[in-house]
């Protein structure tokens, strides 16, 4: 039996703003992770990463990262990715106040 695929999202940094963005199912880049496409299939994940990499005029360094289904959409599973959805802990800057 093949091992269970952990659901993923495609994320990157925006070229101009530099902030974290996530790929949606309808090929937009969103600043709100809840709107991201939660990818449950490994082959589809690879295709979505290729799609993201083609969009080099909008984003930098796209990658696949683990996520889980939450109440309002995909949520991070690792603390680093959780920080990327919020911003720094020492000031009310970034997504925690902008979204």
């Amino acid at each position, binding site marked *: 039996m093949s091992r269970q695929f952990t659901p993923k999202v495609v994320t990157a*940094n925006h*070229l*101009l*703003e*530099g*902030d*974290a963005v996530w790929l949606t199912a309808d090929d937009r880049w969103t600043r709100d992770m809840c709107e991201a496409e939660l990818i449950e299939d490994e082959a589809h994940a690879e295709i979505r990463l290729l799609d993201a990499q083609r969009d*080099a*005029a909008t984003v*930098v*360094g796209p990658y696949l990262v683990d996520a889980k289904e939450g109440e309002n959409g995909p949520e991070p*599973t*690792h*603390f*680093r990715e959780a*920080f*990327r959805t919020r*911003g*720094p*802990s*020492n*000031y009310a*800057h*970034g*997504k925690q106040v902008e979204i």
Partner: protein
Amino acid sequence: MYKYNDFDEAFVRERVAQFRAQVERRIDGSLTEDEFRPLRLMNGLYLQLHAYMLRVAVPYGTLNPSQMRQLAYIADKWDKGYGHFTTRQNIQYNWPKLADVPEILSALADVEMHAIQTSGNTIRNVTADHFAGAAADEIEDPRPVAELLRQWSTDHPEFQFLPRKFKIAITGSPNDRAVTKAHDIGLRMVRNEAGEPGFEVIVGGGLGRTPMVGKVIKDFLPKADLLPYVEAVVSVWNLLGRRDNKYKARIKITVHENGLDTFAALVEERFAAIRPTFTGVDQEILSEIATHFAAPEFISKATDAYDAYRLANPAFASWSDTNLAEHRAEGYAIVSISIKKHGQTPGDATSDQMRVMAELAEKYGHNELRISHEQNVILPHVHKSDLPAVYQALREADLATANIGLISDIIACPGMDYCALATARSIPIAQEIATRFEELKLEHEVGPLKIKISGCINACGHHHVGHIGILGLDRAGVENYQITLGGDGTEDAVIGTKTGPGFSYEEITNAIERIVLAYLDLRESSEETFLEAYKRVGMEPFKSALYDAEARAHAAE
């Protein structure tokens, strides 16, 4: 202070123009990220967790008031109203937008500043003793040599594609405040038997994943040989250094793998070959540079007002006990401005605070400011009679925290609040420890104690040389903090020793408190510092305080 000549000015402007065009080509799609990345890094522009980050060089930590004001202006106009001073005496902006960066670089060029070689595999900003030119224990101001090294290393054609980054630190004092032994090359000014000043040259120091104390490769190097000798060292490493593995590329590994004697012999050979090509032009340039660093005209006046204010105002007396250092000129003091108020982010200053410090430097400080590797700002030349006024102005700007050298004067890297490389957060740990000891009202009783925190193994927070070092790691998807004890960043440099298993984000401040309380219990007198006590008793009592208490707590659950 050094003034750009026409060449410097034209060079920096040209780099701004080149970068402006490179950014335009990246945005219009003509450059891929792979093509653009090395270009932006050459100009100090990183892409971090939440935004771009621009690292601006503050050469050897020296600033004048108009430069400090410009840093404030940039913070207001293109960032979020503050800047972060780093352990390499630089300033970082955490929120610039890509399209604005050429404008920022242009604004920096207006005040003779730049971000060149603040990243990449090049010779980085040369750091220096932040008390240079002011310290009572100094042989000579090392900054003319630091400026010579800056000019020589900037765009040096042989050294633009080094195996890895390369960091040089320099001090003119026997008491090392520049952590020279943790640099690729450390230069310590010493005198030979004839009483002439020269340099002790240290190579192969460094922190990071393989921390090493630098080794003396040359006991005494005459000043005139400095540039060819440093060039020989970098040149030998450039050929020998390992490009196959970036974790083994730094000179510390090269020296370690080849042995100091072999490495030194190769340097001597190279030095003999290139020394004749240094015809003395470097020395002419050095003497010209030295004229820019002439000491200010120190004033002689009474210090009664200072003495009287000390008696009248205990808070001022406490501040002057911790934040002043001995100046070489009669009646003067070196003022360290703490930008680490309890609970604040170590190294951050708001634009308003920057302007206050610029004004104080102008009014009372002979137009000089310094950034220390300990992430504070220094007014190197203040007459004692002006200290009450300086203190009052600092208080109004929330800059009068009396904690220099104490437990809350913590070095912390940006950690996972900003840095893309980080494995855990550093800043909130520093904030919490400082706040805890402020609540306990213990820090003055504890006395000199350096805590240094890094959010990953790369050790930007110098944790290995902290009396107490904290390293933040990712252990199975959870932040975990490893403690080291007994590190020392001075001329007697020592790499700290791990205590044992790490602590969670929630537990680390309690763990640090247990260490400090154990020290208070076991010290022989209030004169015995934490580091002295650690050297006397060793690790065991601290280990016991750390882990036995934890074991007891678990047993009681």
